[in-house]
């Protein structure tokens, strides 16, 4: 287990290097005259040149990257070109928003998805057909559209929830629930549908296995077979789906954060990308990459724990 963990950690570090280097090259080549963006349309060439030098943007790409990397390793992600605030501070205030949005969404979508998927697989009949129809409809609705409909109905017409904004959990629990409910609902509808479908087919696959028939022949009750055998065997593909959904939701959260004006990483990333705020873009990228790597690692550990065969592989 220790070797497995070590191997995955080394792979993760290499991956982080590769991602940051690639991102630096992409931002650099995508261009955009950053000094011009900061100084505005009336700046003279001398002013632009002076600011470019001040920001260190006139140095070769490799020098800029190595310099950034050296600071990043010590935890210094630089200062935003546009607001002058340290990137680490911005990330620290925005990470909890995105994490609470995505974590709550994944919890909700997993619980509801598993219940729906297992029920559909076990019960079949009209429940199964109903679930299939729901899935097709829910999956075809873009989450920002769902978000806009939710705001229009529950925030503007009924006034039950605030239309925009975020109240941190530590400030007010009820406030947090009120600000996070609509975004979470918008974000989970599609993933409940796809999760339920995946879990349904995983459970159906296992139910068809010979050993299930044997267990039934031995007279075990249906709940025992379902909870002790079927679900455990259907779990690994389901866990993988959940991890993919988590990562998918991180990107889905970008749009949802815009619609609901949640001050999360997604909004920060979009604003920084539009303006060419390189330190902020790189900060968000590193943090997101680390989150994805950790989630994948946790999923691998979970799968190994559930299914001993995976350890050998």
């Amino acid at each position: 287990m220790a070797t497995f963990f070590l191997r995955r950690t080394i792979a993760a570090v290499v991956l982080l290097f590769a991602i940051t280097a690639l991102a630096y090259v992409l931002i650099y080549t995508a261009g955009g005259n950053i000094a011009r963006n900061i100084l505005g349309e009336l700046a003279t060439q001398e002013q632009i040149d002076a600011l470019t030098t001040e920001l260190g943007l006139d140095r070769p790409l490799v020098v800029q990257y190595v310099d950034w990397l050296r600071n990043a390793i010590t935890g210094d992600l630089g200062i935003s070109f546009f607001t002058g605030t340290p990137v680490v501070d911005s990330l620290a205030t925005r990470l909890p928003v995105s994490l609470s949005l995505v974590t709550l969404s994944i919890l909700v979508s997993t619980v509801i998805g598993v219940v729906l998927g297992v029920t559909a697989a076990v019960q079949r009949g009209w429940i199964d057909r109903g679930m299939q129809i729901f899935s097709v409809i829910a999956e075809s609705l873009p989450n920002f559209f769902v978000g806009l409909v939710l705001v229009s109905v529950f925030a503007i017409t009924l006034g039950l929830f605030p239309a925009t904004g975020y109240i941190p959990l530590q400030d007010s629990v009820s406030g947090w629930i009120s600000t996070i409910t609509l975004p979470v609902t918008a974000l989970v509808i599609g993933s409940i549908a796809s999760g339920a479908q995946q879990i349904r087919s995983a459970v159906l696959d296992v139910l068809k296995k010979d050993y299930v028939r044997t267990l039934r022949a031995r007279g075990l009750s249906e709940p025992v077979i379902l909870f002790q055998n079927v679900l455990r065997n259907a779990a690994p593909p389901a866990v993988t789906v959940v991890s993919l959904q988590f990562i998918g939701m991180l990107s889905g959260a970008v749009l949802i954060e815009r619609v609901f004006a949640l001050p999360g990483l997604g909004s920060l990333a979009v604003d920084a990308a539009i303006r060419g705020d390189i330190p902020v873009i790189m900060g968000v990228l590193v943090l997101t990459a680390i989150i994805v790597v950790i989630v994948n690692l946790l999923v691998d550990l979970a799968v190994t724990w559930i299914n001993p065969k995976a350890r050998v592989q």
Partner: protein
Amino acid sequence: MKTAAIRRAIAAAIAVGATTILITACAGGANTVSPTETNAAGAEKLTLAVSLDSGPWEPALLQNGNQAQYWNAVYDTLLHMEPDASIVPGMAESFEYNDDNTVLTLGLREGITFTDGEPFNADAVKANIENLKNGTGQNSVMVRSVEEVVVVDDLTAELHLGAPDPALLTYLTLAGGVMGSPAALGTEAITTNPVGSGPYILDTEASEPGVQFDFTRNPDYWDPDAYPYDELELVVLTELTARVNALKSGQVQGIAADGSTVVEAERSGLDAYQSPLDRRGLTIADRDGTVVPALADPRVRQAINYAIDAEGILEGIQLGYGARSTQIFNPSSVNYLPELNDQYPYDPEKAKELLDEAGYADGFDVVMPENAAEKSNPIVQQQLGEVGIRVTYEKVDATNYVTEVQSGRYGMFWMSNSTAEAWWDMNKAVPATAVWNPFKTSTPELDALIEEARGASGEEYADAMKAINEYVVDEAWFDMWYLADAIYIASPDVEVTMHPMNVVPFIKDFAPANG
């Protein structure tokens, strides 16, 4: 089996229903602390959405436009501007030029102190103007003409100019006239914590940078009546949809918007305010024919003006939110001439005749940069094509558009520029040194008019500026289509006055509707 399944389904439905009611109940409780309630209670608090995050609070780095509302709250300016663009005293009680407009004498208001206790005096004016001029901020250009600030006495400062700058008084009502505490200028602390003498003080404890900024009234402000609200909150909402939703649901009382939202907003009982601000159209920059020889002939440039249906674009793309204008100036400017707007009606036949006279009966080719965000591109291509001018678009990265079009690679290009004071607008686009004159074109006649305007004042200045306006319209230096409206939407409990030169109203332009 079937009955059991149905029973379970009903149980599940009840569980889901109960959860929803529970969550809704919690949410309902939370809503009592939302800003809606506070606002409904009266006029003590004003909550506005701002489309951009605040930049640094260092006075040398402040910006006009959307971000002006941030610094309006905490900083005061030497002069103030009225809704009709007239300039009135601010921190300076009096302002007067000498005979040749090269020395501006400011008589300063007595008794103003900054929030750190520093006094406002002539030394503070000198420190602020030097700080702005020597800084790397966008608006250092506003005090570029000031060569020296002379401290005459404690409450009198003289701004000595290298050459007359008719726009200076306007600049002193904007970011160019902001006064920060001389003890704080250039320090690290002022980047995140402003030290001014404005109507409000930033509550750094309650504010969250990038999300929302809370302000309380500055008890020492010299003109409290101009600011009826005791508290101010500015919420950063970059997305238009989020701003509209926040306004409709009562979370904020005012937002910057665009034409696409006006009808819906008015249907929801909100008030829309409009004022013409951004000039849109083509800059026919290559007037010497460097990259497109045909453009050297004024008849060709006039033909372009006749060939494009500007009113059609105003109605079709701008949804009518604006006014037809062939000029690069603001309607509040001393040199704005309404009669010039009739000079180039949509007349493709006339365009063809002019091209024929100029020797381009078979037309010519021109490469234009394509700004993906601009919807008029295909119309321009088609309508110019109909008179024989073959446009090829080259894709340009939107964030790089300004750099590309100012590079001198394109003979003509689409652009939207804000308009303000006459000299300021002229100086941006007309002289050979102007950033919006990428081919540095000039004529002796025009240079003479600019010199005449620079040294003049009053009627003489207005006449010289009018002559410049007429010259560039006659010679078709541009193909201006219209002045697009700045659009601001507010809740009915707020009365808003549009700023004549800024995309959003200043904080002083808001008042309770009943008072």
